[in-house]
Structures are given as structure tokens and as C-alpha cells.
């Protein structure tokens, strides 16, 4: 791999990300898949970096799942998004940041449609007015939450307590970065580093000491793809895609996977269990799987948060081997304890994939 070649591509796809005053909207499903990620994102930006990130409880879904599953027409989803922007305008913000990749892709698509078809924009304004009596302005800058963490990755590195380095050997951890498809594949110019070699996660990994792996199927779909997993008949297709990715990354022996989308971490994580149970094959070391993290969780680990506060216990694939590699202390006994320390029930473990 010629590194300068990638750098040349990255240089063509740089974004000017504003430094402050963000209107934040959450993802519909990330809290249920990886509960602490969004909380950690806000904590890091507000407490560690002192940024003004405003979040109103009135914001709703962006309508992406329904839109992509063809449950609602484009106009409906555009009106929902118009209402979101209206909330932002009312809150007096101009920079809009969303936590979910699918939303980011949808927002970009909608804004692009409005730019090309002004009459459509006018129609949506009228719809919103009729429905909610609200006005809205199109955000001057639309970013994804990972763009922000990417922008402040070096400040985070400065405050870092741990690095993505194997404490025992001193070698940088081998990290597979998987970018959500809706981040840059639809609009390459909207993603940091373009579509072929997005740099948004790679930048974080490199500044936090890790080493990025470019395996052949790095840009292949993680298997999420809405209708693929919603309908049980298609689910085999979804797990086959994930299987193809793992088969392709296996020779590179990655230590961990970092993602920035609601679906990817979930499916890359859960499907390892299904693949293990069906084929008896695991991809991590000695019977474990390859731990999958969201970028907020990785930022949290690097900054020294308690792994269980980051919600790592909800992962299907055990994260403990990686924590040991990074030398992050944790109390195994607290893993299955509730917020007030009461012992929740320990889940029974799968047969073919080791858990802790």
C-alpha cells in the first residue's frame, strides 16, 4: 500500500468543519444498540472540549428508516426534516449535527434535492406551515457527529489516558475502520477523505496511536441494509454480507473494529455470534470475536472513562481482551450490575463464541 497515494486522495476531499455552536439530534436506534455512545459524545464535547452543543427534547426521528424501507413517501420525510430544521432555527443555531449516518445521508440528499428543485422546497415549507405553523432555515453547515470528533481528535489525543497501542508489545493496535455507506458513498464530497478512502475514522485511529488496515472488502456493506434484516426471509442475505467482510479481514488479524453508524457496529457485533453458532467459526484470537466499537466508545476508552459507563457490557463480542491489550483497568464483577450496584441476571453464554 502506497500511503502517499491515499494522502493525495484525502487532500482532494477536505471539509471546513465549523468549530462550535452545534444543534445536535440523536439517532432512533443507537441508544438501544449502544446505549452510552451519544451520552459520551455530548460529555466529551461539552465537558472535555467546552463546546456549545444544544439538544432539544422536541426533535424526532429523521424518518430515514421508514423512508428507506419505503414505508413513507419522500414528501413526508422531507416535512419531518423541515420540522427538525425549524427547531434548529428557533433555537438560534445554524450548524446542524446528527448522530446517525443514515440521517446524515438523508439530510444531505434532501438538502441537495431542495437545491436542485426549489419548487419542492417551497412545497415543503407550505406543508410545514400547514402542519405545524413553523418556519425553517436550511442549516448553513450539516455535519455528522463523527466529523466533530474527527475535528477535535488531536485535542482528545492530548487529554488521552490510554492509546490504541498494545501495552505489552508497544505495537499500534491493528484497527479495521468501517464507514457507514450513507456517509460518503452517496455524496463523496460530503465525507472527509471521499468515498474510496474516507479519513474521518482513520484520522481518529491514527491520532490515537492505532494502525488502519485496508482489507479488500473494506467498502463492502456491513449487512445492515434495512429491508435485508427487517424481513426474516432476507436476513440470510444480510448475515452473508457480514460473513464476506469477516472472511476478507481475517488474514489481517485486526484487534478491533471502529464504526460511525447505528447499524454497522450492531450487525458486525451480533452477526459474529450468529456466524459462530452456525459455522462454529470465530474471527478474534483464541475463540473470542473481534470487538466492535462506535467512535464515541473508542474516544471514551482513550480518555479513560470506565468501560462499563460506556455501556461496553451490552456488546455481544467480549471487549475484555482488548481492554487488557490497552491496559485499561476494569472490574469484571461490576459487568452485570445495575446503576445502583444491584446484580442483574447474568446472560447465559453462547456455545461457540467466548464471552466474559
Amino acid at each position, binding site marked *: 500500500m502506497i500511503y502517499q497515494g491515499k494522502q493525495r486522495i484525502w487532500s482532494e476531499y477536505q471539509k471546513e468543519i465549523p468549530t462550535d455552536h452545534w444543534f445536535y439530534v440523536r439517532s432512533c436506534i443507537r441508544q438501544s444498540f449502544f446505549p452510552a455512545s451519544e451520552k459520551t459524545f455530548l460529555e466529551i464535547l461539552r465537558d472535555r472540549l467546552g463546546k456549545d452543543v444544544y439538544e432539544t427534547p422536541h426533535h424526532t426521528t429523521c424518518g430515514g428508516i421508514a423512508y428507506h424501507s419505503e414505508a413513507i413517501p419522500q414528501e413526508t420525510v422531507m416535512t419531518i426534516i423541515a420540522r427538525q430544521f425549524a427547531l434548529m432555527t428557533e433555537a438560534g443555531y445554524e450548524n446542524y449535527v446528527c448522530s446517525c449516518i443514515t440521517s446524515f445521508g438523508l439530510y444531505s440528499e434532501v438538502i441537495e434535492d431542495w437545491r436542485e428543485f426549489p419548487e419542492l422546497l417551497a412545497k415543503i415549507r407550505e406543508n410545514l406551515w400547514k402542519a405545524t405553523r413553523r418556519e425553517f432555515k436550511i442549516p448553513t453547515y450539516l455535519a455528522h457527529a463523527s466529523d466533530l470528533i474527527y475535528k477535535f481528535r488531536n485535542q482528545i489525543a492530548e487529554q488521552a489516558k490510554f492509546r490504541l497501542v498494545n501495552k505489552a508489545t508497544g505495537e499500534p493496535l491493528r484497527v479495521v475502520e468501517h464507514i457507514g455507506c450513507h456517509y460518503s458513498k452517496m455524496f463523496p464530497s460530503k465525507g472527509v477523505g471521499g468515498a474510496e478512502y474516507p479519513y474521518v475514522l482513520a484520522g481518529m485511529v491514527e491520532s490515537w496511536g492505532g494502525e488502519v488496515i485496508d482489507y479488500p472488502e473494506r467498502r463492502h456493506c456491513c449487512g445492515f441494509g434495512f429491508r435485508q434484516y427487517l424481513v426474516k*426471509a432476507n*436476513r*440470510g442475505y444480510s*448475515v452473508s454480507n457480514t*460473513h464476506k467482510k469477516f472472511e476478507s479481514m481475517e488474514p489481517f488479524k485486526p484487534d478491533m473494529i471502529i464504526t460511525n453508524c447505528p447499524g454497522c457496529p450492531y450487525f458486525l457485533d451480533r452477526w459474529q455470534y*450468529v456466524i459462530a453458532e*452456525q459455522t462454529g467459526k470465530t474471527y478474534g484470537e483464541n475463540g473470542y470475536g473481534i470487538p466492535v466499537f462506535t467512535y464515541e466508545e473508542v474516544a471514551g476508552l482513550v480518555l479513560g472513562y470506565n468501560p462499563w459507563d460506556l455501556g461496553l457490557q451490552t456488546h455481544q463480542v467480549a471487549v475484555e481482551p482488548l481492554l487488557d491489550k490497552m491496559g485499561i483497568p476494569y472490574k469484571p464483577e461490576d459487568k452485570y450490575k445495575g446503576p445502583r450496584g444491584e446484580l442483574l441476571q447474568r446472560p447465559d453464554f453462547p456455545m461457540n463464541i467466548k464471552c466474559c
Partner: protein
Amino acid sequence: MIDFGYGLTPSSTLKIENVANPAFEELRQREPDVAKCIACGSCTASCSAGVFTEMSLRRVILSLQRGREKETLPMLQHCMLCGKCLLVCPRGINTRHLILSIGKVYKMEEDR
């Protein structure tokens, strides 16, 4: 193994990178013309057996090159060796000898 009601579907991708295709190499020894095939389909179009069955010499040659003979060898059973393909082949391939050679190099699986 748990049955989840869905499972891995095998990839349909042909992995032919270094699939040493000994059978095809032997066929090439017997009938070097097979390499000249440009898959234009004249043979399939004029095939006497093709009128009544799905026999296609073009697909047979191609599947042999890809190492997927199982799918197409049954077609060859219908060939009457009438020689029309020999006449129409724009590359002048001795298709009849090719078919006879395939019969000698490749083995039918007794699935029945």
C-alpha cells in the same frame, strides 16, 4: 449448531485465480483450437440438437474454462455430432473433435 431460520448463502463468485484447471489444460493439449473460441455463439445458433434441447457449445466451452463443467456437461449428451457447428465457426475451430475430446477428458458424474 442453532437453526435461526436463515443462514449463510454461498457466494456465487467464481474464484478462478489459480484454480489449476488440469482438465482444461489436457483438453487444450488434445484440441488446441479451443483457445481460439471468441464465444460468438454461431455454433449454438446452428446446432441441430439445439432445436430440441438447450444444448449450447459456447456455454460448454466457457464453463470448462471456468472449471464449472458440472453445469453444462449434461448438454453435450444431446449432441448428434452432425458437424454444422464445424461449418459455421468463424474461427475455424474443429468443434466436432473438441466435443469428442471433451468426452474423453471430462467425466459425467453418475448423480442418478
